[in-house]
């Protein structure tokens, strides 16, 4: 499309009032920052919940007076009770998966940088974009209310927050209060929150896909896009196809709870002394399938794992190439690997269900498909190593986190080879090895991708650099810390330690693990404490950081072609034209060791980044 039509259709003037500028903004950059702020708030909540869980596991029965004041029902007299612990498990998972790992990487950085990196002035549908953030925000408020209103600040009626785990398996999540504490209003709010979140994510996904396909600037062919754009695009496609399934499942679950339907509740249940249909407290249910919920949930839930990590992979590729001062190794292979991961991601959900009562034959198929998805993951790792080979690495803080991402992605992802095998799942299912695996790979690796992205793009977003010394301190402790937290969980799983136990004191076979439990808790406390250094650095640097110029990292892509921060329409009315691939570093004969995508540089014959064989 030509610049003229581009301008005519999409140009809008900067808004004047505070509310249109910062609250109900249509500017993708403001919305991106709003998403990041939401994630920064949610991650503190989720992290403090994990801290409480570790305290409870390592020092069971201890009196924490402040908890007694804050949560009179969950921690009466300051001692956490089992249902409080389980509500922490549930809320921690939900908060982290939905409001951190799905918002910051995609809604946050994707929103801010996808339009700029493809040379667009905004998203295709700015109003939709604003709505998707505010709908997500409402989802966050509803989820918080599941803790606050149902979680113990109104002692007369309080139970605790929902206790179904982030997976909310039916019928525990479907039966209501007869199934015990944590199954009342908190569970309704939990489901409603997730349903709202699904709607917000769908609107965002539509916007990302349309923007990327229609609004690339002149010369920005698909194979000249930064790998971040490929990752955000694939993530949006995954979200578009998977969130509706969760939304549907959530609505059915809510109907089971509130309207007396039986989608997930079979007949003949006898719960807590009551037979279904005999007493008004437990109305008649018949014909539902608990396994149906698991299929619906994991059909969403497995692609969700890739929704969380693909943007981190994109950011890592982008940042590795920049600070390696080298083109990305195997650009085309990287694109195919992202696609392969996205596609295969839809055919492996059954590996969460090997022992669920599903057909053991389908388990065989899911198992083989699951290990196949390791292939594109390995290809990405090889290409990251290839990118570093022969590099001239600059060890900035974003680069450290990007290298950390590669290390953690390998460490966390590789145990998928164990968990994906049907025979080995007989022992490993629902034990701590699963916790170690997915926390490292979808939790910590993704977050490292986001730390890298934050340190990297901060100067573009705020016109100032974050403090490098604090950033490096943050990296060293966090990198060692997360290994110390999550690697020992793998061997706890081998011993057989089950997940979601509020106490390990009941079982003899778990006693030997006590030193490891303590070690993990201490590592967690230190690692959590260090995150506040990051927060300090972030907010301090917004106001006091060293001023950044347009292109402080000597990078090549379009976001570094505009002021820091960019003007309202991103390029001050001068839409850039793209002449080359995204990672043209160290081009022989070029005046600098980097060539911007806008650099026409006719005298240099360089590759376009798309031809894997080109030297």
């Amino acid at each position: 499309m030509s610049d003229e039509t581009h301008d005519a259709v999409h140009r809008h003037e900067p808004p004047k009032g505070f509310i249109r500028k910062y609250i109900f903004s249509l500017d993708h950059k403001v919305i991106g920052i709003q998403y990041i702020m939401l994630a920064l708030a949610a991650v503190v909540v989720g992290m403090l919940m994990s801290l409480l869980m570790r305290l409870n596991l390592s020092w069971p029965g201890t009196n924490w007076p402040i908890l007694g004041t804050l949560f009179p029902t969950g921690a009466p007299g300051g001692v956490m009770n089992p249902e409080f612990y389980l509500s922490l498990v549930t809320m921690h998972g939900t908060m982290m998966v939905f409001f951190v790992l799905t918002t910051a990487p995609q809604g946050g950085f994707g929103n801010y940088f996808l339009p700029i990196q493809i040379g667009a002035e905004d998203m295709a549908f700015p109003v939709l974009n604003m709505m998707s953030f505010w709908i997500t925000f409402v989802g966050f408020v509803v989820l918080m209310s599941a803790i606050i209103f149902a979680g113990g600040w109104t002692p007369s009626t309080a139970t605790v927050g929902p206790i179904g785990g982030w997976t909310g398996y039916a019928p525990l999540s479907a039966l209501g209060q007869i199934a015990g504490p944590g199954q009342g209003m908190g569970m309704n709010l939990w489901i409603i929150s997730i349903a709202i979140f699904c709607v917000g994510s769908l609107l965002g996904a539509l916007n990302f896909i349309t923007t990327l396909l229609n609004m690339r600037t002149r010369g920005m062919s698909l194979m000249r896009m930064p790998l971040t754009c490929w990752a955000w695009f694939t993530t949006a496609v995954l979200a578009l196809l998977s969130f509706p399934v969760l939304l549907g499942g959530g609505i059915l679950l809510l109907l089971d709870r509130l309207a007396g339907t039986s989608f997930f509740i079979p007949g003949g249940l006898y719960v807590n002394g009551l037979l279904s249909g005999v007493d008004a407290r437990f109305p008649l249910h018949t014909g539902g399938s608990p396994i149906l919920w698991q299929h619906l949930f994991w059909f969403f839930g497995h692609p969700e794992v890739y929704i969380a990590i693909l943007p981190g992979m994109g950011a890592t590729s982008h940042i590795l190439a920049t600070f390696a001062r080298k083109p990305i190794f195997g650009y085309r292979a990287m694109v195919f690997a992202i696609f392969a991961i996205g596609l295969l991601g839809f055919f492996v959900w059954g590996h969460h269900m090997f022992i669920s009562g599903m057909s053991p034959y389908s388990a065989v198929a899911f198992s083989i498909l699951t290990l196949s998805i390791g292939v594109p993951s390995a290809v990405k790792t090889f290409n990251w190593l290839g990118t570093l080979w022969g590099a001239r690495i600059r060890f900035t803080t974003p680069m450290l986190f990007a290298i950390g991402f590669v290390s953690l992605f390998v460490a966390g992802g590789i145990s998928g080879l164990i968990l994906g095998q049907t025979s080995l799942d007989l022992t490993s299912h629902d034990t701590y090895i699963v916790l170690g695996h997915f926390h490292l790979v979808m939790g910590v690796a993704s977050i490292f991708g986001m730390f890298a992205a934050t340190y990297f793009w901060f100067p573009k977003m705020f016109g100032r650099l974050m403090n490098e010394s604090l950033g490096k301190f943050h990296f060293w402790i966090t990198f060692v810390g997360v290994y110390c937290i999550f690697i020992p969980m793998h061997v706890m799983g081998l011993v057989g330690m089950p997940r979601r136990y509020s106490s390990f004191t009941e079982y003899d076979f778990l006693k030997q693990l006590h030193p490891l439990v303590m070690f993990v808790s201490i590592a967690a406390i230190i690692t959590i404490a260090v995150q506040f250094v990051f927060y300090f650095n972030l907010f301090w640097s917004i106001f006091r950081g060293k001023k950044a110029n347009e292109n402080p990292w000597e990078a090549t892509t379009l976001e570094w072609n505009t002021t820091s921060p960019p003007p309202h329409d991103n390029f001050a009315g001068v839409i850039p034209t793209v002449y080359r691939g995204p990672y043209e570093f160290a081009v022989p004969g070029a005046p600098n060791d980097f060539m911007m995508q806008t650099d026409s540089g006719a005298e240099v014959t360089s590759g376009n980044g798309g031809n894997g064989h080109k030297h």
Partner: protein
Amino acid sequence: MGRALAVIIWILTLLTVILFVSKKWWFPPAISAHAPAVDRQFMITIVVVGIAFSAAQIGLGWMVWKYRETGARDRALYTHGSNRLEMVWTVITAIIFIALAVMGQSAWASLRLHDAPPGSYAVEVVAQQFQWNFHYPGKDGVFGKTDPKLIDDSTLNYVGLDETDPNAKDDSVTTALAIPVNRPVELRLRSKDVIHSFWVPPLRFKQDLVPGMEIKVHFTATRVGKYELACAELCGQLHFKMKSYMLVLPDDELRALTALPQEQFQARMGELLAKYQLPSTY
């Protein structure tokens, strides 16, 4: 900075490998016929995983060490990759990973793709929130009828046994599991309320119990003793306490136990639970 990062990566890799190789915390000794196959497959997999993990981390550390910017004015290598390398590593990893997946099916197939052999010792398992119930058919080997309508926890009829059924006369229901050694066992798994999961670590065996379904599974225990039985699927408030024991008994001892009428069965079960100790390897 580059060298420090490389050293840290290598140290973390080494400590991780030591944690696994030392086997200080490891699987409990196996007590089932299928367990050696599971353990063998695990060892093959962990060796592949260990080599791949170490190679990738050592390689990453080496790149970081070797290719740090030294201040020299020369540039990085200008290359966009190599299609041949992409082919090589794609094909090699695909072969290794898919081979692992296929090998990983054999123990699963022997357990799950076949019915229990004829003559298996059958027990009905009925889970409920925070309690395991085991229903034994008694001397006649035939289970009395059960019906959810007859379940009444207050009269201790936890499984809804129909006392009017003649086959139910010699049946027993207890909260601990007793099975024979070296003879195939078939468990018929049901749940009264929410999903639970049957988990005995030394058995290398886990299976969910799903309300509305009867799931039949089988295995053969090979070592006499008493083992802890845990619930492995979140089932509510006291999930962490949903504990029982599995007794693996010599055939004559089990035969004597199952011949007893219900009240004596309970008492004898209590004696056996006291007689056997948990494995000392804990």
